[in-house]
């Protein structure tokens, strides 16, 4: 397989494809020489190269998740995947190549003109330099480090290396090993003691690096008493030719720190989105995962919080929409390892057409974790007769001083409610969209304002397409 300057056309299941022209392309399959290629391209130190190779060995040794994982995971062929692509500088796609359907979505979502090209993958980054440099200056003044994964490990080794791969170890599972071997892209963030960021940080605004990688790696360390909100992804459809995305996101909230991590994922429907997200919350710290999955063929994502210090708090709020041909396998894990910790999980899933939504959750209350509380609610909404939903929570409790409750329900949109709205002059699609928006309303309100507005519009659009 050609290594450099390769030109491919990748079929994206009738979505759309671009002739590509990458400056760096490590070719298909993952071997030691692929890793050498990645390390050379990035100019990495030897320890990191060795680290990647050790992870690769682990990856090859470990079995695929078998007895519980969704069937479609079997279709994944690791030899048919390219593990490192970098664009170089110039955008190589044309706006004219973007299908009308996508343009229409942008229109409806109200995505600003300049951003559209970026989102469609036409432009490497949209013109945000001024905004970005102002923000960067402000952050540097406060001592915040906001760089990409490679810069983080090379320029701030003393901060990031001690935590790198500690929350999610290499051998955690096969995909964690894969990410450790092939990671590129993602953000490394350090917030100093007591610094409370007023503005959310967005991967979006970071320049001089791939903003979204296939094997994205994010590590956020919030030092004692600091606060931040981080946003990743966007509601608009995001196109990429890579079919496997296996990211690792590690959060560390030291004593009294607060981290909110917001993800909105809308990959094209040829993508396998297998992401491992885990946070470590020390004494009185708080970690919140706010998660919305709309795209991808198969999503497997179970944000976790390890409540390691007394009084820590964890929360997962999750919305997933599974459309025709999609399987959203999402969930949450809460591991209570210290006394007086509390956690909350609210998950809402919507299955449309032949879409399938699954909730897989785990709540563990450890041996010495006394006085813990957990509340889990998961609700599923089924829109068509063909859709399917599953709920598989696991609750593991030791001791008599904690209380845990789990509740789940499955329902369809009430026909009478629809009839009532139609009778007042709404179309069926509008009525359906109102009903669905009502279903997820309390969660959507938790998203930052722009996101929640876009999410609502997106639901309108989905309903129009499937009903209208």
């Amino acid at each position, binding site marked *: 397989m050609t290594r450099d300057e390769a030109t491919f056309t990748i079929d994206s299941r009738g979505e759309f494809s671009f002739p590509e022209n990458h400056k760096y392309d490590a070719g298909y399959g993952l071997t030691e020489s692929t890793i050498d290629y990645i390390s050379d391209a990035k100019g990495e130190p030897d320890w990191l190269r060795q680290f990647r190779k050790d992870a690769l060995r682990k990856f090859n040794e470990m079995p695929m998740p078998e007895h519980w994982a969704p069937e479609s995971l079997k279709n994944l062929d690791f030899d048919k995947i390219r593990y490192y692509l970098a664009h170089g500088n110039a955008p190589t796609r044309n706006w004219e190549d973007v299908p009308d359907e996508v343009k229409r979505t942008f229109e409806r979502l109200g995505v600003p003109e300049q951003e559209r090209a970026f989102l469609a993958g036409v432009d490497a980054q949209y013109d945000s330099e001024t905004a970005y440099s102002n923000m960067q200056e402000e952050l540097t003044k406060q001592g915040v480090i906001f760089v990409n994964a490679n810069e983080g490990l090379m320029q701030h080794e003393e901060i990031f290396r001690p935590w790198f791969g500690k929350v999610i170890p290499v051998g955690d599972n096969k995909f964690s090993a894969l990410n450790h071997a092939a990671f590129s892209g993602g953000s490394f963030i350090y917030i100093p003691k007591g610094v409370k960021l007023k503005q959310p940080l967005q991967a979006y605004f970071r320049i001089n690096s791939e903003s979204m990688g296939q094997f994205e790696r994010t590590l956020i360390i919030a030092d004692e008493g600091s606060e931040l909100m981080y946003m990743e992804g966007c509601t608009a459809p995001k196109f990429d030719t890579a079919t496997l995305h296996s990211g690792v996101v590690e959060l560390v909230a030291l004593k009294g720190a607060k981290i909110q991590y917001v993800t909105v994922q809308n990959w094209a429907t040829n993508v396998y989105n297998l992401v491992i997200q885990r946070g470590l919350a020390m004494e009185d710290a708080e970690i919140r995962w706010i998660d919305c999955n709309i795209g991808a063929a198969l999503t497997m994502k179970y944000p976790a919080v390890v409540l390691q210090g007394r009084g820590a708090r964890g929360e997962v709020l999750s919305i997933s929409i599974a459309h025709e041909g999609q399987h959203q396998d999402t969930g949450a894990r809460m591991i209570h390892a210290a006394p007086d910790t509390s956690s909350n999980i609210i998950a809402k899933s919507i299955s449309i057409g032949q879409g399938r939504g699954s909730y897989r959750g785990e709540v563990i209350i450890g041996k010495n974790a006394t006085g813990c509380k957990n509340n889990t609610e998961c609700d599923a909404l*089924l829109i068509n*007769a063909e859709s*399917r939903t599953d709920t598989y929570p*696991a609750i593991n409790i030791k001791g008599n001083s904690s209380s845990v409750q789990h509740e*789940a329900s499955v329902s*369809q949109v009430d026909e009478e409610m629809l009839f009532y709205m139609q009778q007042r002059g709404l179309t069926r699609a509008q009525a359906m969209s109102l009903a669905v928006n009502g279903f997820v309303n309390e969660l959507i309100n938790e998203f930052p304002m722009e996101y929640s507005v876009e999410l609502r519009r997106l639901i309108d659009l989905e309903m129009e397409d499937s009903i209208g």
Partner: protein
Amino acid sequence: MASPLRYLDLQQSRSELPNRLNELWRNGRPHIYATSVAEALSSRASQGSISSDAPSHCIKAISDAPSPRGIMSAGSHALVELHHAQFEAAPCGIHLNIAEQIEQAINIRYQSDSLLCPYSYIELQEGARAHIIEEHVSLGDALIFSLRRIKLAQGASLRLELREIGSGKSHAFNISEISVTSANFRQISSHSNHAWAREESICNISNAPESEIESSAMLLSANRLEGKQILDQRSDQNQLSPNTSSRVFYKNVIDDKARAIFDGNIYVAKDAHYSDAQQTNRNMMLSETASIYSLPGLEILADKVQCSHGSASGPMDAEELFYLCSRGISRYDAQKLVAEGFLQESYDRFSRES
């Protein structure tokens, strides 16, 4: 009629003894009890007493019942095969065929001090009605490994109490396959004083074509665990045709170092619209070392349904205790009373008319 493929697939693909890789077993202690069942079955002969006070015209020869082989289980196919080998060598069990409405409760009793592998086959004909109390008494370190097949025809109604009584050292393993066709089924199970017990209740609920009677099934359980006891319960509500309803309501009081596992699933087949299913697991934890693993599951393939599940675990309510203590009841007795009251809810549901 659609069949819940999940089990068939699992059965076919896993003929070895249940282990941690078996999704339907992994949360219990398969390495402890699957091996001890296999060991008992291969080293001891089945012996014990079997009795029943059912009207004689209802009792049929067990050898005339359809073979227990191929009974639906939760990943226990290999063990069913072992049971079958024992059963072939010495068929034992009770075969009831009830065609009328029997007011008085029928008692079935299995007792053993070593190993007993009985098979109960209970069939209710159209419109029949019965109340059966099935008691399994294990003495010493006995293992009673029972398979049950229950078939209810249109309009039939069965109430079944399963009481598994142990000696503290004994083990119990029960697999029930229940087919409810336009009929009404209600079961309550209780397991007391076993070193470990596993119960699998697989309930297939459907309606006969063109029948106006809508099936309903209710599985209840109430257990108190202490010492190092382990109770591993698996319940399945397979709703296979439209307009059926089912309830699972399992409660445990867990003390000392005891451990309970609840693994339930609601399966609504494609096109089984207007299914109404609920599943509840509640656990009262009485000691620091007690533990519970609760997995309430839903697999819904139809959209016009009402399904929900809930699982809650927590300590005994301090206020309830305080109230009783303030009336002069000792703390020990008060605790006992509150725990009893907690379990009583299952029995109340069992005896409720509707």
